């Protein structure tokens, strides 16, 4: 265990405590709790930053990476960088809008991502870069992609809060949408947690995903277990739908201005979209062109990036030109982040488990 991973560990714990603090702040609305939450987040962020810098230096000192290569080249490193951007973005919003309630939505994402890393036991080795990955275009591509991903994650948070606050009627499509979304997310997390409890592995590579993903539940060899899992999943989703008002009451009690949430979602996407276009699509294409001589080959990763791009283009056009406001576009913002997650994790874990190719790109 070296220093940088212990510092990451401290940051992970810190974000979990911050999450608890932000949620209690939402529940009790005590200013002191809010300040504590911010303090914990700041301290964890500093620890996180130092760990990142140390790891950068280690890769260089061990002769595995050139000095200008930040550590963002594998799943472990990129998730950590994603969380770093996310928290930075969140802190900026907190200080700018002087509003903390949003932290209760962001710190869980950060804590979950880092806990996922810890639990999965994914390789934390500093890996040397294979030749194709030694490209400055790739570096710019990865860095900017993750910055935009974290923007989209923030917009997901604000969009979801908007939806929760704005929907009352259980039969309303927007209400069904957000409760089912949260329900499915819960089901996935529970299913992966059960996999972990049963097999002590978290599917972080295509091979593991193929062998273990949902083996304890939906993919169980026993038909009974698998059938029960489906029923259980439906029950969880139903419960979220039935008791969604609890979550809603908490958020409503906080008197967040929904217009600000709508505006914030738009603003964050308006910053994330150009960054994603340039870094995620254009730089990625230039890198592929330099490395293989094809700037676009419709491979699943590229195609999913394009899908993500279209979803956000849809958001911008619908909002700006068709005058869609509020719930309709908030749904698009949430869907957009789902495609982001799929582009990043789903393509590598699910699709490449389904196919036989590796996960080089």
């Amino acid at each position, binding site marked *: 265990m070296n220093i940088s991973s212990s510092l990451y560990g401290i940051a992970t714990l810190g974000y979990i405590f911050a999450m608890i603090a932000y949620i209690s702040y939402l529940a009790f609305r005590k200013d002191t709790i809010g300040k504590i939450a911010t303090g914990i987040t700041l301290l964890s962020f500093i620890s996180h930053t130092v760990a990142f810098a140390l790891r950068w230096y280690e890769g260089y000192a061990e002769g595995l990476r050139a000095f200008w290569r930040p550590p963002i080249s594998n799943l472990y490193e990129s998730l950590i960088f994603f969380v770093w951007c996310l928290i930075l973005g969140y802190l900026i919003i907190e200080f700018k809008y002087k509003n903390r309630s949003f932290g209760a939505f962001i710190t869980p994402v950060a804590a979950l991502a880092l806990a996922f890393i810890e639990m999965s036991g994914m390789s934390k080795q500093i890996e040397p870069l*294979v030749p194709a990955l030694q490209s400055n275009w790739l570096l710019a591509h990865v860095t900017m992609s993750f910055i935009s991903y974290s923007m989209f994650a923030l917009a997901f948070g604000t969009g979801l809060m908007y939806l929760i606050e704005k929907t009352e009627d259980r039969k309303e499509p927007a209400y069904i949408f957000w409760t089912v979304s949260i329900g499915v997310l819960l089901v996935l997390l529970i299913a992966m947690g059960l996999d972990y409890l049963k097999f002590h592995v978290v599917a972080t590579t295509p091979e593991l995903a193929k062998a273990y993903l949902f083996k304890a539940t939906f993919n169980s060899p026993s038909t009974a277990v698998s059938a029960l899992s489906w029923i259980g999943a439906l029950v969880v989703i139903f419960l979220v739908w039935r008791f969604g008002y609890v979550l809603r009451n908490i958020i409503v009690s906080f008197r967040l201005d929904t217009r600000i949430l709508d505006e914030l979602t738009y603003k964050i996407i308006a910053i994330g979209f150009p960054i994603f276009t340039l870094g995620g699509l254009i730089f990625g294409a230039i890198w592929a062109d*330099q*490395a293989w*001589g*094809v700037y676009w080959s419709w491979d699943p990763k590229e195609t999913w990036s394009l*899908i993500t791009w279209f*979803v956000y283009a849809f958001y911008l056009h619908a909002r700006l030109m068709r005058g869609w406001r509020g719930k309709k576009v908030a749904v698009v913002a949430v869907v957009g982040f789902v495609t982001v997650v799929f582009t990043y994790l789903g393509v590598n874990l699910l699709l490449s488990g389904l196919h036989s190719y590796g996960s080089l790109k």
Partner: protein
Amino acid sequence: MEKEKKSFIDRLWDFFASIKLAIVLFALIASTSIVGTVIEQNASPEKNLKVLSRLIGPDLAPSAYRLLDSLGFMDMYHSWWFVTFLVLFAVNLIICSIDRLPRIWKLATEPIKPINTDRIPSFPIKKEIVLKGTPEGVRDKVMSVFKSLGLKPANSPVEGGGFQLYSQKGGWTRLGVYITHLSILVIMIGAVIGIFFGFHGYLNLPEGYTSSVAYDRKTGKAHELGFSVRCDDFDVEFYGMSEMPKDYRSWLTVIENGREVLRKVIEVNEPLRYKGYIFYQSSYGMMPNIKQGILILKVTGPNGKTETVTKRIGESFTIPGTNIVGTIKDFSPALATDSSGRTYTYSNMMNNPAAKIEFSKNGTPLYSGWILKRFPRTWNLPDGNRVEMVDFWGVQYTGLQVRKDPGVWLVYLGCVIMAFGLYSAFFMNHKKLWALVRTDGKNNTIVTFMGTANKGRQHFANKVEDAISKLITKSKEV
């Protein structure tokens, strides 16, 4: 009744000029694209049958396969309907832009006009302050607000005494959206040119071989390059003593009309370009008959003189300045030793090349052993002489991707345009500011600031506010 008179052409135009269509197309292209990421494109039928049976069960898989195949989903990004979506998308983009351009052009280029003081319209930004002195006396102060915002105001008199200042900035940024849209079209044109006039192929070229053709990626047909390429050498470099490749390189020479015209060492991310063709280092491999290779050694004798020796397996050489003869007995591309000390070959790639050499003097065997390219300490012989293994040449081939794409510069140009377009569309705005400067009839002047911005309005409002508050504190100091 107006509507019914619209001609077919008008209706077609309206259809393509609508953003509703754009939104529908975004959704259509995005959702159908998903299918192509689940079904492996251009793969063998068995592969996709397997994928389908995993998804929907083995009973339904064959008929689902047949259905999807007949709809072109096995190569969907080139299917007629997907290409139709893309064409509709392009037409939509063109017509939509043309349709709106005149209005936007006017907004972007129209000079700002003074406000009609009889009927002052309402403005999103409006702020009134009272300053001591005559309108003429406060002119510089009001000017300073404009200046601090980077605006150069024009001036016109106001009826009943006073004047107004007004200015705008960033009108052309309204065109940012159009620049973005234009860039999408430029990229699409570049891509189409590449599809119709480009070549995309591969060439596996063994060390020492020359080729004047490359092979089409899809059909495998030979394609004349118009010149030849020779692979002089190929080499893989590893990270330290690991099996992880750090870099691979090919030494290439371009030959045209019998003359060597260009030499270049290529590596991944560092291709060779010649006459529109680009050769990318993409893979490597071994020739089937490895015994054909030539061992290149640097042999140093007791007098310190070094000679380069090139020999095949089975051949012999002499260490300079001695009568010691080395005979090359064996070669392994990847030598390893097992726990009992026996040697074996662990890979058929050149991961750890080694040659077994037997030395003898006047027919009497002296010593023998393996010399490894990656382990310099094996080069020192017991008697102080040295045999360095430089290479085992002529058994590896370099895998090159060969591409010619006359449209790629348009794609790159489009990317650059898009970067500018997005920047001006999202991060810049069109601001307008007016200041009405009128006397209140006594000794004071009322200044009314009014302004708008097409986006980032709050930000602009704050800046205006700041500039005005500075003006007020300054006038208090006076």
